[in-house]
C-alpha cells in the first residue's frame, strides 16, 4: 500500500523538472508575499495598537473586515485591474508571479497587521504609562513598543507565510497557473483534483505540509538562538 506520505517523499527526491519548477515558484512567491506583507502590515499594526488618534477604532474595524476578504474575490478584483482591458494593464502583471504577489500582499497585510495589533494592544497601556513616567517622548515610546513586539513579529510573519503558501483563489485567477511560470503547489493540487487524480493531489498536499513544517521548525530554531 502506497501512502500519500511515501508518495510525497518520493516526489521530493524524483527531481522531476516540472515539480521542481512548481516548488521554486511557490517558494519565490510565498517569500516575496510574506515579507512584503510584513513590511507593510507590521508597522501599521503596531501603530493601530499604540497610537491614539481619532478614527483609530474605525481603522481597526476596517482592518478586521479586510482580514476576512475572500481570496477569490481579491483575485477577481486584481484580474479585472490587470486584465488586457483593465485600468492597470500597462503594469503587465497578469499571468506573472509579481501579479500573484500583489494579490497576496493585499490579502495578507491586514492579517499581519491584525495579528500585531491583537498582540500589542494589551501591553500598550502599561508601556505608555511607564514611558510617560520616565519622561520619554512619543517617538521613543513607539520605538520601545516596536522592540516589545519581536515575538509577535515572528508569529505574525509565520501566519502570513502560511496563508501565502496555502492560498489558491487569488493566485489561480491572477496567475493563470501557467506551467513553469505561475503554477504553484496549490494550483497544481487543484488541477489534479479536477482531473480526478486525487492521490496525486494528496501527495502534493502532503509535500506542501512538509515544506511548511520545515519552515516553521527553522523559524523556531532561529527564535531560540536569538532569544526571542
Amino acid at each position, binding site marked *: 500500500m502506497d501512502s500519500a506520505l511515501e508518495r510525497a517523499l518520493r516526489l521530493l527526491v524524483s527531481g522531476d523538472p516540472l515539480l521542481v519548477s512548481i516548488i521554486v515558484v511557490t517558494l519565490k512567491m510565498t517569500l516575496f508575499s510574506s515579507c512584503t506583507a510584513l513590511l507593510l502590515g507590521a508597522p501599521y499594526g503596531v501603530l493601530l495598537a499604540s497610537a491614539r488618534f481619532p478614527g483609530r477604532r474605525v481603522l481597526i474595524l476596517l482592518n478586521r473586515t479586510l482580514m476576512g476578504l475572500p481570496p477569490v474575490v481579491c483575485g477577481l478584483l486584481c484580474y479585472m485591474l490587470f486584465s488586457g482591458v483593465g485600468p492597470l494593464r500597462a503594469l503587465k502583471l497578469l499571468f506573472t508571479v509579481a501579479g500573484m504577489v500583489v494579490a497576496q500582499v493585499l490579502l495578507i497585510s491586514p492579517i499581519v497587521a491584525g495579528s500585531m495589533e491583537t498582540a500589542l494592544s494589551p501591553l500598550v497601556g502599561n508601556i505608555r504609562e511607564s514611558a510617560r*513616567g520616565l519622561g*520619554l517622548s512619543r517617538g521613543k515610546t513607539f520605538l520601545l513598543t516596536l522592540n516589545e513586539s519581536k515575538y509577535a513579529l515572528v508569529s505574525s510573519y509565520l501566519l502570513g507565510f502560511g496563508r501565502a503558501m496555502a492560498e489558491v483563489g487569488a493566485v489561480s485567477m491572477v496567475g493563470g497557473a501557467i506551467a513553469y511560470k505561475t503554477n504553484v503547489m496549490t494550483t497544481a493540487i487543484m488541477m489534479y483534483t479536477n482531473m480526478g487524480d486525487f492521490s496525486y493531489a494528496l501527495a502534493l498536499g502532503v509535500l506542501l505540509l512538509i515544506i511548511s513544517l520545515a519552515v516553521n521548525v527553522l523559524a523556531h530554531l532561529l527564535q531560540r538562538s536569538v532569544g526571542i
Partner: protein
Amino acid sequence: MIELTNIQKRYGSRVVLDLPALTIAPGERLALIGPNGSGKSTLLRLLAGVICAEEGTLRLDGLSRAEIGYLPQHPYAFDLSVQKNVELALAGEQEKTRKAQAALERVGLLHLCKARANRLSGGETQRMAIARVLVRPRKLLLLDEPTASADIQAIELIENAIHAYAQETGCTLVFSSHAPSQAMRLSTRVLALDGGTIGELGETEQVLQTPQVESTQAFLKNWKI
C-alpha cells in the same frame, strides 16, 4: 507649588476623585493612604499627566514634563537588559553607565545589571523600576505603591533610596502606601483618601496617631504604628 481646584475625575458615571482644593508645597513629602479604590492611584496619575480630569484645574508651577518622575503601580520592564532599562531615563545625558549602575547599586540590583529585564521576579522588577525613576533628579516624584511587590529586606533598601533621593534633590514627593508605618517613615504630611474625597489631611504624626475623621480611624484601626 502644585494646586488642584475642584478636580473631578469620572469613569462613566462613577466619580472616582472629587477634590475641591488641594495644595502641595514644593519640597513637601506627601503620603496618600486609604483602602483600595479610594483614589490614590488616580490622583497620582492625574499629577503625572497620564490622565486628565473632567472638571477642575491642575496647576503645576514651572514644572515641565521632563522634571516629573512617575512610578506606576505596575511598572513595565522593557525587553532590554536591566541596565539599559535604567538608562532609558537618562536620554541625552553623559556617563549613562556610571549613573545607571550607581542607581542599581542603591537598590541592590547591580549583580543583575546585564540580565533580561522581563525575566526578573516581581520584587526585582519593582526594584529596577525604582532605580529607573530615581536615576535622574526630578522636581516632582510620584510613586504609586513603591514597595508593593518587594520582600522585607528590599523594603528597607527602597525606602532608604527614596529618602536619600528626596534629601539630595529636595524634590516634592507624593507617594501612595498601603502601610501607614511607611508613611510615618517617609512623609511630612499625610492625605487619607476616602472614596475619592479628602478624608483627612494633616501633619504625618498627627493624622496617623490621632486621626480625627471616622474613615481614617477605621482604616488605621488594624495598624500598629
